[in-house]
């Protein structure tokens, strides 16, 4: 009756059972260290997340020399703060100004700077975001509540090679008195992807 053999589509509620079967088999075949899986899950649930990137941004706002190094070589600069791995050695940081707004996507997959932002939100990985933001970024940003003036240039970075991108948002007004730690709390994950400004959250 249908154009397709729907039997070939798995039942999503079945994923748990299938994941167990795959893990068991890979462990038994001697290919998978289940301890390594434990440790990766633990790492991304607890240790790595957007707070890494937020501290990088706060440092860049307070230390012009650090900001210069960060924009010149993102990987080296985040390593100074103890973040990153081989992947972030390929980190490119793009700066928002009053005239330029940057936003990050990966249209072919979901490439994302894990080491400084943790794992991406579901919307970032969705076909909808990937399809639309390269073509109609203003409309997409508007759905996130960010309406940009027509005079601002929007730069979309489609990060589909080995490099990873992060946005350095503008420092919000009225934050001159804040400590670096307080500033970091103003920097949301969305601001570092480029679908929000800092200080809104």
């Amino acid at each position, binding site marked *: 009756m249908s154009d397709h053999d729907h039997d*070939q589509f798995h039942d*999503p509620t079945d994923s748990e059972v*299938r994941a167990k079967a795959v893990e068991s088999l890979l*462990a038994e075949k*001697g290919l998978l260290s289940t301890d*390594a899986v434990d440790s990766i899950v633990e790492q991304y649930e607890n240790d790595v997340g957007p707070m890494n990137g937020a501290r990088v941004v706060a440092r860049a706002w307070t230390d012009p020399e650090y900001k210069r190094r960060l924009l010149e070589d993102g990987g080296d600069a985040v390593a100074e703060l103890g973040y990153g791995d081989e992947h972030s050695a390929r980190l490119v940081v793009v700066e928002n100004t009053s005239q330029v707004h940057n936003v990050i996507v990966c249209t*072919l997959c979901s490439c994302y700077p894990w080491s400084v932002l943790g794992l991406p939100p579901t919307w970032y990985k969705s076909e909808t975001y990937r*399809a639309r933001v390269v*073509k109609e970024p203003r409309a997409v940003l508007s759905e996130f509540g960010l309406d940009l003036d027509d005079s601002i240039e929007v730069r979309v970075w489609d990060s589909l090679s080995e490099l990873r991108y992060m946005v350095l948002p503008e420092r919000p007004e009225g934050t001159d008195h804040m400590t670096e730690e307080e500033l970091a709390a103003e920097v949301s994950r969305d601001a570092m992807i480029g679908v929000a400004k800092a200080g809104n959250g």
Partner: protein
Amino acid sequence: MRRVHDVGGTPGFGPIGIEKDEPVFHEEWEGRVFGMMTTIGHRTFPMRPTIESIEPQTYLTSSYYEKWLIALEIGSVQNGTFSADELRDRVEYHRQHPDASVSQNHDTDLARSTWHDRYSQRSPKYDGDPTFTVGDPVLTRNIDPSEHTRIPRYAQGKQGVVHALRGVYDLLDLKVQGVRKPEPVYTVGFDARELWGGEAELSQRIYIDLWESYLLRPGST
């Protein structure tokens, strides 16, 4: 022809579903799948081409980690790690025995080697000089293979300008087939009107990292 994963610019998708305070993993199995793929994926089969080989209907209606799980199944069966029958039997076993535990493997050498492998993809050596330099106009090729590539459909056959040189990396089109071809990678900037014509939004530029193989000098064809 591009596969369905190459969605940049495809019309018809609806609004973006934004979830407030989203957890890192919504279900425990998502974490396990993530952990499995990141430890073994790159070592035992090419992860991205395997995900891209998923049937279009399934690709567009599966969640991110569902796609990873399907790729783990396809990749492991294709490379002979286990058979489709073994997998089916084991799935059935876990379905019948929801409390049965998952097999463990505490091999410490294996745990170390997985991590080491994952973080050892250093940039390769490259002797030549990059062909292009910052500010050069470039024309992207129309390559259109069925196999894995990193130049998206929407940026093929378009004029852009070299914005930055990013270093030398193995061309992934070949690397996923086991062939190493180190090449310069450039960030190329495109005016939105070049990519989308009259449908482009105001003052927009798109920047894409492209291997040298994807680029031509305009007029050289």
